[in-house]
């Protein structure tokens, strides 16, 4: 996968797909985002990392329009994120937990999302086949195992060919085989020029996939840049170690 990385042309500067400036969010007395400035570049895999409570989910939910920032600006593909829901047509979202209404089947869920999005594009059903979901689609969701539901969750995120994929802890509930298929899919999406934004705790699993890193600590961006730069800055080759080094630095 790193070979594919180096083959990509680096002459043209990648466009900015998500830009946050001075993003602040407070839940009651708890200030979760304390002025976050983030630029996410197109055609790359960006990992949002940080310990629990650092503000990863809140940042992701701000981009999705699920959470409204108190102040600061946020644009997705150049359009300001506000009450207008149309920017979400560019986004594919895979939430951390896949819980669907229990009496619906996978096919019902797929149809509902298709109806709501009204996209004319031919859908991407590759993951449904690759993850072996097709025979499960007509069963009520409540009878599916947690892993199968998570697969459905992943397949649905890719289905509408969004230009930006937002994956919250994507490999958490997937078995190793599914996880491998899923990672290949992410790499291919990147090579097609789409942008992937993911948050994850399981760092080593994603080492070979990540181009850029946004490291959040206590509501602030502690580090932002390419994986190579992160390695230079921390003197650590493995992402896991590099992050550990960043955390120590932040605590000091």
């Amino acid at each position: 996968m790193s070979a594919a990385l180096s083959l990509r042309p680096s002459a043209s500067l990648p466009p900015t797909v998500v830009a946050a400036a001075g993003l602040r969010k407070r839940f009651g007395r708890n200030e979760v985002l304390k002025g976050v400035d983030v630029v996410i570049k197109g055609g790359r895999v960006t990992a949002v990392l940080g310990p629990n409570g650092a503000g990863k989910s809140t940042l992701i939910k701000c981009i999705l329009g699920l959470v409204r920032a108190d102040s600061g600006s946020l644009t997705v593909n150049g359009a300001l994120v506000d009450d207008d829901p149309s920017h979400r047509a560019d986004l594919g979202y895979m939430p951390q937990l896949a819980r669907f209404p229990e009496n619906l089947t996978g096919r019902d869920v797929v149809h509902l999302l298709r109806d709501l999005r009204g996209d004319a594009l031919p859908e991407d059903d590759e993951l449904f086949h690759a993850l072996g979901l097709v025979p499960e689609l007509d069963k009520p969701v409540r009878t599916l195992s947690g892993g199968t539901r998570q697969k459905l969750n992943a397949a649905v995120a890719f289905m509408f060919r969004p230009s930006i994929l937002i994956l919250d802890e994507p490999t958490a509930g997937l078995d190793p085989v599914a996880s491998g298929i899923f990672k290949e899919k992410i790499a291919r999406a990147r090579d097609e020029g789409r942008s992937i934004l993911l948050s994850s705790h399981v760092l080593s699993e994603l080492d070979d996939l990540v181009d850029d890193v946004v490291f959040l600590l206590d509501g602030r961006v502690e580090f932002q840049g390419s994986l190579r730069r992160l390695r230079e800055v921390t003197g650590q080759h493995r992402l896991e170690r590099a992050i550990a080094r960043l955390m120590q630095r932040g605590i000091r």
Partner: protein
Amino acid sequence: MNAAKVLRYELQDLRRSRWVFGYGLLLLTLTDALLRFGGGGPRALVSLLNVALVLVPLVSVVFGTMYLYAARDFIELLLAQPVRRLELYAGLYAGLALPLALAFVLGVGLPFVWGGQGDGSLARPLAMLLAAGVLLTLAFTAIAFLVSLVFEDRTRGFGVALLLWLAATALYDAGLMFVTMTWSDYPLELPLLGLTLLNPVDLGRVLLLLQFDNAALLGYTGTVFERFFGSALGIAVSAGALLLWCAIPLWLAGRRFVRKDF
């Protein structure tokens, strides 16, 4: 448009739900039994009313809250689609309230139809019972929305839902009785009238009891209502107040849904 799409899928979900089915079946059995063994006529209707006034708010608010907490993750996924929040809310609300209202109408109405009592003198009170049940369903489903949106913690939300039900069906009347006994030397009719308007369950009761001419059925609040407003105006006022009980929680919950951080 989008509201209708969400509504359709939620209907599909709830149509297959054994809870809603069980609720309808319970009402059906109860109504049938009351019609057969409850003396028939107005007496069966009044017994039915008392059951409905307890059961409808309980199922609407408790099942509604439970359903919404369980659907929280799915609602988040829907909110991440290019859809306006208000449309989603409208679809979700209708998708929850309509199956419950339908279960009530069928569960109570069908035994009257096959018992051959759906016409004649009972038609009007029966229609009013069905209307009151539907309005109570709409009101308490909206309250369920409000509870699930205000309380993040589902255990607490569940407790609040139960407490609200208890307050509306039992505690409120106990309070009214206490007021009546304590200040029995004073003219209490007007204050009681106002207090009755504040409780949707009492409104449902008054709405139906005003259909009967038999003063013994009316109870205290009913009598006060009839004396003050007369039957026709009394019905209009209590129906109007009950509609407000649907509209205000629905509006509050909708506002909250649109502004909330999920």
